[in-house]
């Protein structure tokens, strides 16, 4: 005899913006989630997950309503939407596959700053410089951000519009807000994205985005659309999708709001004197340009530093530790970095801008270093934290802070100082921590100074 069980049909489990009638009847005064486990426990695993997502969407509704989103828009936005578990930066506990990370942190500097890619983009950029000369002149005049930098952002973000944004914004933002590492931030972005649909900025069919929900030619997050987008052509719309002028002006406006200093470069490739190495890397060790010059730092290819920046604060940047070029970065490097929190991103944009303006490759080639997997970087950061090093954040990303602390560890332990996190350094740290933390292993320089210049975007 076949027992017929009423299976929870997909249609009943589809996320909607308002409460499930059955739940509402059972517990009109209690948050619906209270009944979640009992409501979903009868379902198979996949359906339990689907139901939890539906609950998540339901709980979103009051805030969406608070932002002026109508129920009809909200239901339309979520109709048939299921979470996309294939996108990066999600936390899926127990799933064996390695967590995907952003390219900025999984590739080596040489891979990320791929020369043929940069060459191709700079050629395109020079053509676009002429094609959009009028808009770019207007942007420089009205917003004060140089044309080459604005074009470089466009080139980096979408290869001048060639990259298609493959995802539906609501789907990826909801997934990130539900399961991501940065749920609160993405929840806000999701609500703003719903508002964009309500305001008819985009339709559901045209609401394409990156896996992180960034949209348009210069990849704006929904909240940035509302706060930073710019209507250059004066048609009453901030069209970062279809209007190159609007998209570039919006990017320029974002840089301006994030602190762009007109008339200054992002930084310079330099050669270091023997007395300086990667240990001096990082915004924590910033000092005026004239002091760096006094220490013997010179610009590559025999060029001079501009005379009017001698009092500007600059910091040393060695993205591959001692295995590649060194840079003196100015405040505008950090401003570009606020567009996307990565040194390599900012360096890419800076170099591409220089190339579009007629510059070329770095003088010092990148060494053949290997990028330690994120999980190992995380372990290394945890070990260093345990040893008393001022690790800013255990995030699996080998940024400036981590690199210079690796250098400090190497110096304190009599190892070769190259500031590059490797399996060998991690193994050495394991042995050190197994013996117990030793005061001798403490960093020998002050790393506790403020990191005000490195705010997280």
């Amino acid at each position, binding site marked *: 005899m076949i027992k017929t069980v009423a299976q929870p049909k997909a249609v009943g489990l589809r996320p909607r913006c308002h409460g499930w009638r059955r739940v509402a009847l059972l517990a009109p005064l209690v948050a619906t989630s209270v009944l979640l*486990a009992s409501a979903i426990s009868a379902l198979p695993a996949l359906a*339990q997950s689907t139901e*939890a997502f539906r609950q998540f969407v339901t709980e979103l509704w009051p805030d969406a309503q608070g932002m002026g989103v109508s129920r009809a828009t909200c239901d339309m936005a979520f109709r048939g939407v299921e979470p996309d578990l294939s996108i990066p930066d*999600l936390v*899926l506990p*127990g*799933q064996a596959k390695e967590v995907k990370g952003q390219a900025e942190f999984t590739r080596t500097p040489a891979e990320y700053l791929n020369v043929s890619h940069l060459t191709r983009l700079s050629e395109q950029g020079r053509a676009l410089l002429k094609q959009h000369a009028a808009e770019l002149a207007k942007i420089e005049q009205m917003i004060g951000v140089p044309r080459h930098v604005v074009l470089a952002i466009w080139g980096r973000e979408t290869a001048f519009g060639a990259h298609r944004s493959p995802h539906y914004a609501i789907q990826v933002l909801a997934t990130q807000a539900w399961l991501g590492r940065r749920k609160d931030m993405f929840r806000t972005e999701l609500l703003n994205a719903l508002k964009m649909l309500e305001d008819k900025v985009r339709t559901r069919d045209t609401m394409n985005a990156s896996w992180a929900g960034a949209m348009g030619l210069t990849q704006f997050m929904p909240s940035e659309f509302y706060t930073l987008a710019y209507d250059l052509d004066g048609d009453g719309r901030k069209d970062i999708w279809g209007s190159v002028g609007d998209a570039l002006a919006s990017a320029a406006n974002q840089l301006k709001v994030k602190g762009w200093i007109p008339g200054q470069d992002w930084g310079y490739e330099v050669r270091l004197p023997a007395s300086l190495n990667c240990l001096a890397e990082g915004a924590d060790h910033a000092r005026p340009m004239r002091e760096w010059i006094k220490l013997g730092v010179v610009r590559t290819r025999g060029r001079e530093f501009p005379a009017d920046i001698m009092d500007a604060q600059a910091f040393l940047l060695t993205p591959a530790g001692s295995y590649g070029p060194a840079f003196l970065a100015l405040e505008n490097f950090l401003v570009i970095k606020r567009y996307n929190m990565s040194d390599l991103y900012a360096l890419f944009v800076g170099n591409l801008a220089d190339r579009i303006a007629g510059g070329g490759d770095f003088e010092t080639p990148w060494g053949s270093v290997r990028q330690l997997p994120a999980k190992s970087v995380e372990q290394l950061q945890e070990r260093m934290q345990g040893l008393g090093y001022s690790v800013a954040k255990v995030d699996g990303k080998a940024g400036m802070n981590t690199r210079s602390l690796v250098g400090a560890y190497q110096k304190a332990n009599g190892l070769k100082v190259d500031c590059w996190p490797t399996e060998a350094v991690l193994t050495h740290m394991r042995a050190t921590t197994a013996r117990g933390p030793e005061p001798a292993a403490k960093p020998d320089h002050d790393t506790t100074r403020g990191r005000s210049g490195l705010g997280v975007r």
Partner: protein
Amino acid sequence: MGSAYASVSRVRACVAAAVLLSGAAVMAAAALADSRLAAISTEEPRAAPQGQLDALWPAANARGISRSAFERYTADFILDPEVVRLATSQPEHVKPPGAYVADLVTPERVEIGRALAAKHAATLAAIEQAYGVDRHVLLAIWGVESAYGTSTGSRSVVRSLATLAVADARRAPFWRNELIAALRILQDGQTAPETFVGSWAGASGHTQFIPSAYTAHAVDFDKDGRRDIWGTVADALASTANYLRTSGWSAGAPWGIEVILPSGFDYSWSAPGRPQTLSQWLAAGVRIPTSSANLQLGLPLQLVLPAGAQGPAFLVTKNFRAILRYNNATAYALAVGHLADRIAGKAALMAAWPSADKALGRGEREEMQRLLTARGHDTGGVDGIMGDQTRAAIRATQRTLKLAEDGHPSFELLQRLRADPLP
């Protein structure tokens, strides 16, 4: 409440368990706790040397004990050799968590718990209202600690603690502190010497409080002027509720739920300090097999595998941690949580405990720590205690050996390490 308390409360519950299970092998945690008492003299003195307790007088006086009370309660003190023997015994064979839970969560204990839930319904409702702690958890602690007050121990608390204060040189300050707290309880008339009886480690009453826990957490719920955890069920259960609330109990949340893990699961996610939301676990394929747990989607839940990858899996809330503060052994907290669920009418565990699970004896645990240390994994010394550091070392070696990274000190792993002592 420092770590000293945690280990002693462990001793207390072990004793309660041993009493309850009359004749059964003592649980794993008993051996852990016993290792802390290794410093006790194994001689069996019949009487205390004169003046041993007199040395306590200044400290007792400073804590408000009168001379007459001090003399009244300590004058005829003689060492209890049985307490010395119990405190120094180190059982080699211990119970795996499955057997421990099964022995505590019996149909009888569930049934009596339900009857008492009905009998004390009004009191329990009032306690829930006042402290926000689930009544079934209070009943379960009562059931586990003293078989609902039928097995609270029969040794004089003062004599036991005085014996330990004299005989356990290493932990004398701890025992002295408990003894003074016990004297204060008597001086204040909270109970009488005849009723102030309990376990060999000085835990007494329906829910087995040691004197310092009594001082800090006991309450007079029935407002008769006495905080009577020995003769008044309302006071005992309210005191327990108060203790759990102080330990971080969050009203309305369960202790945890049993879950089924998907195939191919990475067991390293059972390492401590990796709580994730229920949504996250569900999206990763974890399934809730039993119904009616009240869980918020966004609540942080920690994965716990009491018997390793082969046994049942649980997602626990911070309320599980509160129960651990009562007695710091995973099997204990699980037994309490599960008994509470069963009293509340919920189903038995879905997953079976691994039949081959054999808890390591003391010597084997130390051997495992030595083998792990030899492989370069720091166990924080060789003490026979499978604490967080040893379990982290087990995970590290499991990772190296490409075994399920569950941190469980299984006999199988010990054999593997013996056969292959160095990588």
